[in-house]
């Protein structure tokens, strides 16, 4: 019985492979400026067993003279953090803060002529703008400061990025020009449904936004492990212990050398 339960999981681990790309999601259009196009390459991302980040490219086309800023937003989450503070000479956890409704991932790719931070905010872009949709619960602490620390924390993990000069334009032809922007998905990415947003602007005014859904999903093996861990937690815990015991025992037998038993 125990062996029956372990073998499929062990077999799945040994056979774990990075799976192929999943079909792209249907792009819903929001306030689309005329003739603006946007695509993501690859069209979807699968997190395989050996995933360690992934290069991707956003490509599109817009009218000459227009500028574009590209955003990639992960699903929103609520997260709890310990806030450190000084007690005498020691750094200690001084309280619990919660950051609610913040995207798990935020990548902002801007053209070379990046608008200043204040203008970015008026365009509805940037990390400062994110603050509007995020709720910070921090009893006795300034939420503004906590949000700034939260941004530092996310930037350090690579989950929040803002890059100027990331959008490159091709020479214009027939009143139109193509654009592209390369970026890397961070290695600490979780599966979920992301939004890719192209904000088209000219002379500091937003002309419109084009939004697409981008799917990040777990490969079959990771999905199996995660499914077991979340949906059959007790069985998963027992399996983890059994596999650890078997591995420990096997290693004991493998190493059984010159020293005999007693």
């Amino acid at each position, binding site marked *: 019985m125990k062996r029956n339960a372990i073998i499929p999981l062990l077999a799945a681990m040994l056979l774990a492979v990075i799976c192929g790309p999943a079909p792209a999601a249907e792009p819903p259009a929001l306030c689309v400026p005329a003739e603006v196009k946007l695509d993501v390459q690859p069209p979807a991302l699968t997190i395989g067993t050996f995933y360690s980040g992934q290069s991707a490219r956003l490509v599109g086309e817009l009218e000459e003279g227009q500028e574009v800023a590209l955003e990639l937003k992960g699903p929103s989450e609520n997260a709890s953090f310990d806030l450190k503070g000084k007690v005498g000479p020691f750094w200690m956890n001084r309280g619990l803060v919660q950051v609610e409704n913040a995207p798990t991932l935020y990548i902002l790719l801007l053209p070379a002529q990046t608008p200043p931070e204040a203008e970015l905010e008026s365009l509805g872009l940037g990390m400062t703008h994110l603050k509007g949709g995020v709720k910070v619960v921090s009893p006795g602490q300034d939420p503004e400061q906590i949000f700034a620390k939260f941004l*530092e924390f996310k930037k350090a993990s690579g989950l929040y990025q803002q890059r100027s000069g990331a959008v490159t334009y091709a020479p214009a032809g027939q009143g139109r020009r193509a654009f592209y922007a390369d970026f890397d998905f961070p290695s600490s990415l979780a599966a979920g449904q992301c939004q890719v947003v192209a904000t088209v602007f000219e002379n500091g005014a937003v002309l419109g936004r084009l939004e697409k859904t981008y799917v990040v999903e777990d490969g079959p093996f990771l999905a199996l492990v995660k499914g077991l861990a979340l949906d059959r937690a007790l069985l998963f*815990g027992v399996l983890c*212990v059994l596999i650890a015991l078997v591995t420990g025992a096997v290693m*004991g037998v493998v190493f059984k050398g010159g020293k005999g038993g007693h």
Partner: protein
Amino acid sequence: MSWYIYLPIAHQSVFLPLVLGSGFVVGLLSGLFGVGGGFLMTPLLIMIGIPPTVAAASDSNQIVAASASGTYAHYRLGNVDFKMGLYLLAGGVIGGTGGVQLIKLLRQAGDADFVIQITYVVMLGVVGGYMLVESLQSLKASNAPAPAAPAPAKESAYSRLLGSLPFQTNFDKSGIVLSPAVPLFLGALVGILAAIMGVGGGFIMVPVMVYLLRMPMHVVVGTSLFQVLFTCVDVTIMQAWSNHTVDFILALILLLGSTIGAQVGARLSSKLKADQLKVLLACVVVLVMVKMLVSLLLTPSSLLSIHGGH
């Protein structure tokens, strides 16, 4: 093939040789000294970016393998006192359960984390410092020429107290006679401390066995591993069930490294003198204390850290 592997519960990609190597080093310490290694591995995992809750739970899972492997290796060498281990384990379960309730009360009362961390540093300092001085003196004495006629040792008050307790029982493997109340009581005490400090307690249990139960060092290591094994089985199942924080892939990589390390450690341990083992363990304990003290004094890179874990 990539040298990186993705952890589905930690949502993090890690460099495979680094995690494998960390597992080996901690397994080596485990086999050598009979400690679980959680006090070392969990901070290491947090340093490489694993969320604290996942690091602590997955570490418990890998300790199951390392301690099973180490216990088996020590059993073959005749170094496990199962009888003593069971008494200590029973005490540990009672103490651990009480300790969990105590920590709840402490947290309700105020800034318990401060008290816990300072207690941790002081305890590590006292235990490590005492072990280091005592074992160095002992090593020096063993290297000096033996006196012609050793003076008869005077029985201490502690020895008289141990001898006066009821239900004196023979622990053959350790070669001592004791009341079972002693390992039960000391096991409970370590259980309380382990629950408060959020670690398995192996590094407290080992000095307790050596200095308070007066067990031979080689039997201490095997018996401690036997006890750690059961503690971590319980923790792994509870963490997986209640918190969903056991990352099996992380644990699997760690345990591949640690089981090999534990076997190497067990062999090394049988080749070293008891005093040499004690000096090495004391150095590890003092190093951990210094590391903790430094982390408390230096300004952290980020003032926010994911809630949970040790």
